[in-house]
């Protein structure tokens, strides 16, 4: 297939053209034995034990943005969802729904970054599906990914595991992805180097879990941001969470853009950050381990779990006041003035 070609309905029709797309374009990029068999599904060995299984669909606009693209996002997203269960992700499936007329060049770029992301995370894309739909039926490309991973013996992390006395760690700066997408989508020209934080977090999770330090909760605060995710945890665990504004890591330009548009970075999406809630006694050690990961250099302890106001997240503000951090309600819309 030529880079300048466009995707036609034929490419999804299951015939010769579809076959050519798979074998010429997709297979070489996702290169692995299980996929190469081209059976209806992948067959592989698993040891006895517990597995984690997760699925998500990606429909981001624009599909290419500073710091990544929809393909990378789809792989990292599912890798991270599996990792947040405490599991080591192994196999991934990919479903592509492509709009007729897409440039092969663009599709190739997306597939390449999916392959790159899979390699970086150490997972294999072993089964998948491609559909092409008439122009206008989807917005360029939608990607669904599902992932399977194995849980080490004794690992038990869950949103209901937070206990009073625990500390809340975030693995780096927040709102980078949300601000990037927003700026790109709305064509806002900021002279800043804000880019998406899309990244696989499974190696970080593995290092933390293998250290033997107890971990109560792991979550990646994607849509809805840190604020919404912490609210979910507070409700699930029936605990209060107290955050300290002066410790929240937000990059200067991200903060600036948020202030300009009236957005709260607490509610903007992250694609390469995790929240770890761990007992207070070993929080600093876990923090050190996270900071050793290439995606965890800016990790900080941002708050603590309390037995006050169960189900609520409270922020101690810069000036020593307090305010509630509620769940995000609906989409944030930019303000007038």
């Amino acid at each position: 297939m030529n880079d300048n070609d466009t995707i036609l309905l034929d490419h999804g029709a299951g015939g010769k053209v579809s076959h050519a797309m798979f074998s010429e374009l997709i297979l070489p990029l996702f290169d692995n034995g299980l996929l190469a068999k081209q059976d209806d599904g992948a067959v592989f060995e698993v040891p006895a034990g517990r597995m984690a299984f997760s699925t998500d669909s990606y429909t981001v606009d624009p599909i290419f943005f500073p710091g990544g693209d929809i393909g990378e996002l789809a792989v990292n997203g599912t890798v991270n969802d599996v990792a947040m269960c405490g599991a080591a992700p192994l196999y991934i499936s990919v479903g592509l729904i492509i709009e007729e007329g897409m440039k092969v060049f663009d599709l190739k770029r997306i597939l390449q970054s999916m392959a790159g992301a899979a390699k970086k995370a150490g997972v294999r894309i072993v089964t998948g599906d491609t559909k092409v739909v008439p122009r206008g039926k989807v917005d360029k490309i939608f990607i669904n990914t599902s992932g399977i991973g194995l849980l080490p013996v004794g690992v038990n992390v869950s949103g209901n595991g937070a206990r009073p006395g625990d500390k809340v760690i975030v693995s780096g700066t927040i709102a980078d992805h949300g601000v990037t997408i927003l700026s790109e989508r709305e064509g806002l020209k900021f002279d800043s180097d804000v880019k998406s934080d899309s990244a696989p977090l499974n190696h970080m999770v593995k290092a933390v879990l293998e250290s033997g330090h107890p971990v109560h909760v792991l979550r990646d605060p994607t849509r809805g941001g840190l604020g919404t995710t912490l609210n979910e945890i507070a409700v699930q665990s029936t605990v209060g969470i107290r955050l300290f504004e002066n410790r929240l890591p937000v990059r200067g330009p991200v903060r600036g853009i948020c202030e300009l548009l009236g957005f709260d970075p607490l509610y903007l999406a992250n694609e390469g950050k995790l929240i770890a809630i761990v007992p207070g006694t070993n929080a600093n050690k876990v923090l050190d381990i996270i900071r050793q990961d290439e995606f965890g250099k800016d990790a900080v302890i941002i708050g603590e779990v309390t037995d006050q106001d169960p189900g609520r997240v409270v922020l101690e503000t810069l000036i020593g006041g307090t305010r509630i951090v509620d769940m995000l309600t609906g989409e944030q819309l930019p303000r007038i003035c």
Partner: protein
Amino acid sequence: MSLTYNQEFKDPKISKALVARIREKSTRPLRLMEVCGTHTMAIFRYGIRSVLPDTITLLSGPGCPVCVTAQKDIDAYVMLARRSDVILTTFGDLMKVPGSGASLAAEKAKGADVRMVYSIFDALAIAKENPNREVVFCAVGFETTTPTIAGAVLTAKAQGVDNFSIYSANKLTPPALAALMETDGVEIDGFILPGHVSVITGLDAFAPTFEKYRIPSVVTGFEPVDILKAVLKLVEQNESNAPRLVNAYTRAVADAGNPKARVIMGQVFEKADALWRGIGTIPNSGMVLRESFYKFDAARKFDLSIPDTREPTGCDCGRILMGLKRPDQCRLYKKACTPMHPVGPCMVSSEGACAAFYKYSR
């Protein structure tokens, strides 16, 4: 666009010292009103209410442009959005405001061509790209946004963009303050005056109201230190019975404001009576296009006849905007009216008093 981050105006040490001073000086109960929605947001975001002594009550005034946009004007926007020959362009926070029936977000979901823009100049660009359709801009806002809107209209005229028009619901701040002071039951001991508006109007625009009612008034910025400074000044003026009109935002506001912006505004717009949601008609508080710009007036272009509307039953927005009630004293608050299903505009805009109350307090 360059981005600055005013760290020094967020300084916890300075803030704490200011709070201590306020506590020391404040002996009698005061009702202070922040006029501007951006102030309301900042006050909630930084938890300013939670650090002030009980003597001080902060009230949110009629300074959120979305909140005061009349239902009738929203209805007009909805009518325009429903026309297939129109591309309606708007700032984001207007999208969810309910008119008497629909909102722009609902019309968009039904297929209307409603586009969110960040600047009216984006709307002008859309007009140039779509010469066969009429591009209408929902012009909403105070003195802060009006000069830019005037600038865009002048540009459209100079460049002969004939498929571009605005529907103006633009408003002026000082007449609203005067109207407030004339309303029975309104008790205000001080105004925290809007920083952004004052950048354009200058301090001078508030002088007549101040002279007439002698209410302590401080123009200030939007960082915690700015707001606490203003509160301290208002406390001091009240305690010493020496009301003044003060500019505490000198890093941005000149006493005379920005005369150039006002000239442009005056070239394109003239004052007219305007309908404020929840408050009613305030004389000379609106900005409508001058006759020489009628061809950019969407209301004239489309000959819209909008039926009179009734405010939703139970919504207390008006009383809240005048400082007569707190959001949680509205009987729809958190019940029929939430940010997911806003009944009144105070719950829609992120700068609305009800939305801020809902989001940030228990």
